[in-house]
């Protein structure tokens, strides 16, 4: 693959990642959780695939497949099953402020990734700030989300962001660590899925405002 094409592919994947995250925040996460999350998973998988092709390592391609299976298909399914079509209430801050906040966070992401320039100046390094932005968006979703599912989505976005940074900055952490991370994330999502079910049985709805009994 020529460098020029490689740069465009990386740029494309990063752009889709960013777009999906923005849309998630815009559409208050629940309604369109499944398609947007699978889109994000797909973008991440393609990013890994492009890197694999460029570096020519079979390992990365297998990882891309793994990411595709988990992040594009598996986790969104869990999301849908756990939300059971429940239309959640509005987040803590209205959409306009959250979009302005996202713009601010994007600026922060670019400022913060200044020291990463030490990794050289290839197209992958240019894309790293997108990964960090993704992490910040995930946090924003978590902080403002009033529903269990929104927090689940936020956590997944953070994880996608971290994986993106990993693959972009160093071509992926050692395989054994990557497997461990994916397994952990999967288990956390399963636990959250079970807990969401229990919250729904206990409180009737997954609105987190009921969960304020434990305070000082």
């Amino acid at each position: 693959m020529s460098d020029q094409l490689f740069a465009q592919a990386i740029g494309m994947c990063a752009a889709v990642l960013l777009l999906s995250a923005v849309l998630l925040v815009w559409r208050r996460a629940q309604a369109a959780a499944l398609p947007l999350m699978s889109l994000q998973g797909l973008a991440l998988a393609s990013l890994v695939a492009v890197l694999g092709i460029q570096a020519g390592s079979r390992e990365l391609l297998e990882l891309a497949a793994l990411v595709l299976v988990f992040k594009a298909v598996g986790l969104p399914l869990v999301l849908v099953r756990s939300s059971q079509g429940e239309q959640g209430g509005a987040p803590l801050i209205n959409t306009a402020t959250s979009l302005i906040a996202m713009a601010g966070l994007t600026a922060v992401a670019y400022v913060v990734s200044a020291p990463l320039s030490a990794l050289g100046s290839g197209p992958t390094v240019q894309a790293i700030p997108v990964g960090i932005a993704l992490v910040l968006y995930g946090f924003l979703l978590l902080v403002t989300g009033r529903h269990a599912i929104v927090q689940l989505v936020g956590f997944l976005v953070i994880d996608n962001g971290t994986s993106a940074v990993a693959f972009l900055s160093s071509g992926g952490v050692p395989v054994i660590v990557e497997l461990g991370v994916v397994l952990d994330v999967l288990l956390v999502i399963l636990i959250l899925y079970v807990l969401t079910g229990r919250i729904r049985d206990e409180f009737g709805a997954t609105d987190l405002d009921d969960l304020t009994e434990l305070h000082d």
Partner: protein
Amino acid sequence: MTDTGVRIQLALLALAVVVALLAPVHRRALLSGLVVAGIGIAGVLTGWLALTGHAGRLTIPVALPFGPVTLSPAPLGGFFMLVIGAVGAVCAVYSVGYVHGPAASRTSWVALAVFLTAMQLVAASADVVAFLLAWELMALSSTVLVLTEHAHRATVRSATLWYAAMTQLSFFLVLLGFAVLSAEAGSTQFADLAASHVDSAASNLAFVALLLGFAAKAGIVPLHVWLPRAHPEAPSHVSALMSAAMVKLGVYGAVLVTTQLLVSASTWRSLLVLGVGTLSAVYGILQASVASDIKRLLAFSTTENIGLMFLAIGASSLLRPYGSTDVADTALVACLLLVMAHAAFKTTLFLGAGSILRATGERDLDLLGGLVSRMPVTSATFGIGALGAAALPLTAGFVAEWVLLQSLIHGGGTQNRILAITMPVAVGAVALTAGLALMTFVKAYGIAFLARPRSEGASQAQESPTSMRVGLVVAAASVLGLGLVPGLSVSVASRALGLGDAAAAGSGGIDLVGLGATLHPGPLLLLALVLVVPVVVVSVAAARRRPRRDVDLAWGSGGVRVSPRMQYTATSYAEPLSRIFDDSLRPERDVVVTHSSEARYLVERIQYRQRLSDVFESRLYLPVIGVIERVGAAAKNLQNGKINFYLAYSFVAFLVVLMVVTL
């Protein structure tokens, strides 16, 4: 040599623990008491060995790389071990007969043994870590002892909380002070700390921290609040140990700091110590003179005596830079004499109060009276203790106060204006304290023992068992002994300070060489006896001709109903004083008159209630506690249960760290 002494004490402690746990109930008091007395006596011997210069080293194994943690008492430490050991032995013997109820439980005996040994180790430690270890062991075991009767009275728990909090404050202050010093000197050994005389800002900080820390343990006024609360709640033999021995370690620390660790010529330091001492002396005895609970009265009198000791330390460090070193040394000797005198008479008084409490079940002076005929030994010994506390001639108190006054008036005010002003004020303060002490202890003895009993308990009082009387008699004898043969105690004190025998003379008297003042109580007593002979002869002659006749009614200016309630009580005895010093005592008086139901103008009952407040407590401590409570309330809504708040904390922390690491 002293290491064998300390080893003996530790072995006796182990034995005491075993005996307390295993001895059968009816034998436990006797056996444990004797073993604890053994610890005391071993302490006295070790102290004597340290005083006579046979210091040995005993290292304690510690896991952390502190540097050697050693126990090897210097002469000064040896002196305090001697005093504390003696007090411990007397209190242990006394406690064999005294302990009853929870005070006779296994934990109390173990805690008593640990308490006495810990006090010995504080005086014996030669480095920071050993000192702090023994200091906190003493604090822990004394807290356990104060809590003995927590099931009997609700006030015990709050008093213990005050005590634990103030002791921990004192521990932290001492820890900070020593930490600053060890940072300066680079090691934790006292010898190295003493060697590094650096007069920088850090050493000023260390001085203030250490002074406040030791003042808190000694019960000096701004930090005295726990003393009148903890001592009355503890069993009497424990409050005797705490008052006569434990607070002395605060004085030991102060002497150690001013004479060895942080010797410096800056006048503000000595003025601070002098000022704090004077304030404590006057305020302590003022509160004591109006207190009507006997143990609270004795606790405040401890604050007064500790104030006098700090005054002596302050005066000596103030005089030293102005060339009159022998006057300064005399002031320090006066401080150590005060330590011994106070240990003697305060033990007597607290043990006496314990035997009154055991016999009558009453602590309030207003409900006692008429015990002089019912409890002869207790009243005699308490009387001697009261004489000592009031510093009347031929008692240890008088000798100590005399040496202190001599050192103050020979202050050599000619060289320096500050001395010319501070010395007279100090003498005035000491004099006012002596006057009020006189008033306090005449009140304590007169109201508690003389006239007719004011309550049921007082009228059925019996004399205490033998072990208590033995303890009382030994303590009272020491008060008189130190008074009649002061030469011995002065030589011990001056050897503790490393001054050689500068100030002791033959036939037991004192000859303050530098000051040209001499005091020989022996001949004075002889002259008094010579003069009393004719008086007694005339009395006996008159008695043979005209024997005393009993009448059924004291002279009540013609009144018929003379009931014990018409006698003066402790509150009324001190009423003129509380009226004269009302701005610092803030008395709240209310009189409730209940009229008889039939006629509006006939009075059925009049109730007079008076509550005196501790101005330091109401002005200083209550506001601080209020602030802490409000901070606690405000902090509660940090943790308000909403998960979004918690995530926001993490998010903000994440952003802050990102900023910090990149910019």
